[in-house]
C-alpha cells in the first residue's frame, strides 16, 4: 500500500527556497548560469547543493514548499514568472504578500515516493520581457 499523504499542516513553516539572482550578470549573459544561487531552509532535514543552481531540497508528502527570490543588486527587479515541475508531485501557485504586490510561489508536496524531481524556474529580470529559465536543474528529492 502506498504511504498515505499527510493532510496540510499549517502549524509548521513551509520549506522556503530562496533564489539569489545576480540580475546584472544574468541580463548581460542572457542566462542565469553562474549568476544564480539557490538555498532552502531544510539543511537540517538533508537538503544539499546550497549556493548552486543544483539545489536538492529534501521534501516529504504534506510539506509546503515556498519559492521566492532576491536580487543581488538591491535596486534591480527580479521575480518568478513560473515554476515548471511535475504537477503530480506539487502544483506551485503564485500568491502575494498581503497588502503588497511582492509575489511568492507556494505548493504542497502530494506524495512521498518521489525519488528525484527536477524543476525549472522562469525568472523575470529587470525590464526584459522574455523570462530567463534555469539551465541546470534544481530538484526536489524524496
Amino acid at each position, binding site marked *: 500500500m502506498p504511504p498515505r499523504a499527510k493532510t496540510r499542516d*499549517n*502549524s*509548521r*513553516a*513551509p*520549506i*522556503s527556497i*530562496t533564489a*539569489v539572482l*545576480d540580475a*546584472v*550578470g544574468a541580463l548581460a549573459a542572457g542566462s542565469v548560469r553562474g549568476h544564480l*544561487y539557490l*538555498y*532552502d*531552509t531544510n*539543511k*537540517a532535514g538533508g537538503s544539499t547543493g*546550497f*549556493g*548552486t543552481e543544483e539545489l536538492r531540497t529534501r521534501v516529504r508528502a504534506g510539506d509546503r514548499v*515556498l519559492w*521566492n*527570490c*532576491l536580487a*543581488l*543588486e*538591491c535596486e534591480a527587479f527580479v521575480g518568478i514568472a513560473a515554476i515548471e515541475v511535475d504537477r503530480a508531485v506539487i502544483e506551485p501557485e503564485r*500568491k502575494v*504578500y*498581503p*497588502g*503588497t504586490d*511582492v509575489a*511568492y510561489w*507556494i505548493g504542497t508536496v502530494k506524495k512521498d515516493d518521489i525519488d528525484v524531481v527536477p524543476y525549472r524556474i522562469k525568472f523575470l529580470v529587470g525590464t526584459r520581457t522574455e523570462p530567463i529559465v534555469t539551465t541546470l536543474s534544481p530538484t526536489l528529492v524524496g
Partner: protein
Amino acid sequence: MPQQLAIILLVDVANALEMKTLEGNAYLFDNMKLHGSEGQGTGELVTAIHGSYWRDGSQATEQVLNWLPYSLGSIPPTVPRGYEAERARQTDREALSELEAMVHKPANQGGDAAAQLSHLQQTLGTRVRSTRRTRGPATQKILDVTGNVISYDGAAAHTYPPPVITDIYGEAVDKKIMYPAEYGSPDMVTDGWYWSATVDSTRPGTYAYTMAVQLHRLLLQGGDWTWEPVDLTCESKLRIVSEPKRNAFTKSGLGLLPIPPA
C-alpha cells in the same frame, strides 16, 4: 566618486539559532565578481577592491561599502519598510470591523458566538511583548512566511526578523583599511539603519574583518511571546589590489575614458 558596493549577508536564521553558530549558516555576496571577488554565495567571501588612482599615481577616491543583512526563508526585504508594523495595524482594523459587525447583529441572529470569537482571535493574531531588553526589529505581531498573522498555537510557523549587524571590527579596522559606521537612512521611523564603510584602497593586501550579528529567537516567557536576542559573529575578508578600476557596464577602464574600443 565610484559606485558604492554592496555586501549581502544572507543568514539561515532558524538553523543558526539551532546550531548556535553562523558557520555554515551565513552566505555572503557582493557585486564585485567582475573585479575578482571569490566565494560568492558561500561563507568564505573575499571581496575584491580595486585601487583607484589618478594618472600621477595619487589616490583618486576611496571605495564605499554597504552591508545588507537578510534572513533566508523569511518575508523578503522587497516588501515595504515597516511591513510587520503595517500588517499589525491592518489586522487590528480587520478585527475591529469584524467585532463591529458582531455587535450590530440583532441578538436572535447571533449564530455561534464561540465560533465567531475564535475567528476574531485568528484575525487578531498574537502580539509579541517587547521589553527594553528584548525589543527586536519586529516587535509587533507574529507573522508567518506568507505575511499572515498567526495565533498562539501556530507560532512554530513564524518568520524571523532580519539579522541585525551590531558591529564591524577586526584586522581591516585595526589596520585602518576601513572605517565602518552605522548610518540611518531617511526612513528614521522604522528600522532604516545600515552599516557602511569607506575603504583605503592604497594599501594592497588581504584583510579580515568580523561582523557582530544579532539574531532573534521567539520565546514564550510567562505567557507572553518575546524576541530574545542572540549574538553571533561571522568573518569575511577584503582583498585590495592595485589594479585599476574597471567599468562594470563597458568592462573597460584601462584607457583615459571608460568606453570600449571601437
